[in-house]
């Protein structure tokens, strides 16, 4: 075991002496995560707010006086134009409106994502909707009917999730997702350097010629990979937490493809037991992934080849997590907690929501440990393959 610790320590000393590597693996995620997660939505919400307050010109044709007045009240400036559609297409106006045969046609450039044109179109639609409602109310009043006739009943949706689940928000999905991303990116730094890197630099042969069983060499390198992976995971989650705090302070959230901002609303309130369980789950996950990375790194002929294996590996590891988004549609059964990676994501989600059962915890830990041991066995086997160790 002493040899394992010796190798473990040596690998980490080597990593921590490379300042650029430490910065890019442990410091940069803390700085970038808040910007990456919340920066775009915050920036966008500011732009949207500015666009909503600004008075924009709108090309109009055939609009009655009441509609022109409604647009002006909505902070828009109607400009008469013979062909509003053409004017918008040519980019001279962000939006246009034409009134023909009782229909208001609103023109905007809507095909290129979220633009100022979209915002102006929404303002036009809002102004015309308000005008329509005012005219309906007036007609009802003249007919002597109450306004409630238009809305005989109300509909209200209430979130009935348990309080801890509601507090967790999207974190149940985001936490395992980012944990895997950072565990992989941090772990691969050591895994590649300690295997293909050693091979390429010519240092591996000296280590293998020392009186140390291969299993101890593999274990030492895997544990160093796990340590760095966990540190990287902590850095990533710290960045996520900072981003959350920033979001709470300044607004913003996760940007959806429709240009809406989805508030994270996540807050973690874990008791000591759940926190330890979460950490142990992350450790087992890192052990599994670390051993796979070490085996794969050693299999590669060179540093570059090893790195080229890591990108597809990342996608492969992330794939099961993507299905976690649809867990609400799945009837989760006990055997789901035996599926590699998916079980970890499910358990983390359950731990955050406070709904994890001992069976789910036991299945996930036991199966992940078995996967980790199998991966470690693979790493030892690869270390013992002379055609792999010496093929460079």
């Amino acid at each position, binding site marked *: 075991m002493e040899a394992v610790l010796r190798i473990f320590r*040596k690998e980490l000393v*080597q990593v921590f002496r490379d300042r650029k590597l430490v910065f890019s693996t442990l410091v940069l995620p803390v700085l970038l995560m808040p910007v990456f997660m919340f920066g775009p939505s915050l920036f966008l919400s500011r732009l949207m707010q500015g666009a909503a307050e600004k008075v924009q010109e709108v090309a109009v044709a055939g609009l009655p006086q009441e509609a022109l007045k409604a647009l002006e009240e909505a902070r828009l400036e109607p400009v008469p134009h013979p062909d509003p559609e053409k004017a918008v297409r040519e980019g001279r106006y962000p939006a246009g409106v034409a009134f023909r045969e009782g229909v208001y046609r609103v023109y905007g450039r809507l095909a290129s994502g979220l633009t100022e044109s979209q915002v102006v179109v929404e303002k036009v639609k809002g102004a015309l909707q308000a005008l329509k409602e005012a005219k309906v109310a007036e007609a009802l009043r003249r007919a002597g009917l109450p306004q409630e006739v238009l809305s005989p009943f109300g509909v209200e949706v209430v979130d009935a999730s348990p309080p801890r689940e509601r507090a967790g928000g999207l974190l149940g999905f985001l936490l395992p997702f980012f944990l895997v991303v950072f565990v992989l990116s941090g772990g691969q730094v050591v895994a590649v350097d300690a295997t293909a890197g050693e091979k390429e630099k010519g*240092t591996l042969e000296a280590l293998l*010629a020392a*009186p140390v069983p291969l299993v101890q060499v593999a274990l030492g390198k895997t544990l160093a990979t796990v340590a760095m992976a966990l540190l990287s995971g902590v850095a990533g989650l710290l960045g996520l937490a900072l981003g959350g705090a920033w979001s709470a302070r300044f607004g913003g959230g996760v940007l959806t493809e429709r240009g809406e901002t989805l508030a994270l609303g996540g807050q973690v309130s874990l008791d000591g037991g759940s926190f330890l369980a979460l950490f142990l789950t992350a450790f087992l996950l890192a052990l599994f992934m670390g051993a796979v990375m070490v085996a794969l790194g050693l299999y590669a002929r060179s540093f570059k080849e090893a790195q080229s294996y890591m990108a597809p590996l990342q996608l492969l590891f992330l794939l099961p997590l993507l299905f976690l988004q649809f867990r609400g549609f799945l009837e989760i059964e006990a055997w789901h907690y035996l599926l590699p990676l998916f079980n970890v994501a499910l358990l983390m989600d359950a731990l955050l929501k406070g709904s994890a059962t001992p069976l789910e915890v036991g299945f996930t830990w036991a199966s992940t440990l078995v996967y980790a041991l199998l991966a470690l066995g693979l790493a030892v086997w690869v270390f013992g393959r*002379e055609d792999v160790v010496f093929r460079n």
Partner: protein
Amino acid sequence: MVQAESLTKRYRKAVAVEGLTFRVGPGEVYALLGPNGAGKTTTLRLLSTLVRPSAGRALVAGFDVMREPIEVRRNLGLVNGGMRVYERLTGREVLEFFAGFYGLKGRAFLQALDWVVDLLEMEETLDKKVGEMSTGMRQKVVIARAILHRPKVLLLDEATAGLDVFARRALLDFVKAYRDLGHAVIYSTHVMGEAEEVADRVGFLHRGRLVYEGSRDEALALGEGSLERAFVREVGRA
């Protein structure tokens, strides 16, 4: 100290070495000579348990390379021309790292360190990071790592590759000094001149087979004063 009997290594269809039989005693430098691809590196890897023989057997310091690989490694040191040590560690850290595998810790490590520093004149390398060292200094660290535990058998494979004249000279002097301490050295090279200087006995390796074995003086006589001529002659006869 080293005993190989019909040692053979095959890679799929290719034969790297075949039927090697030789012995090296204590206090002896055995030069394994041959061109690139002759099987020298494979032979040393077989002896150092890095690869497994396809047939035959070998004993190092009395331990079987197949059945007792850890004991074999504990009793030998391996240096090859392409071997490097960790660039971000200092010379002292590299030596301490490897010394631990041989149980050299605390005072025992310091004593071993003093011995190796004196032998290789490498005081200046101890507190310098390997990445900041000259080629010669790095090679001293590589050698020091291999002999720190005073192995009974030292395997050197093209160990002077890439070294400047001073470092090369220091290495050749070291080989003789290490032999004089009573250890067995297998010195593998394609540079015949080096073998002429350090070897007690020589073995000519060609296409994986040992085509000649004898004392250095016998081989020199065979080549009229030149190991190179002797090598060419024996390979031609094989």
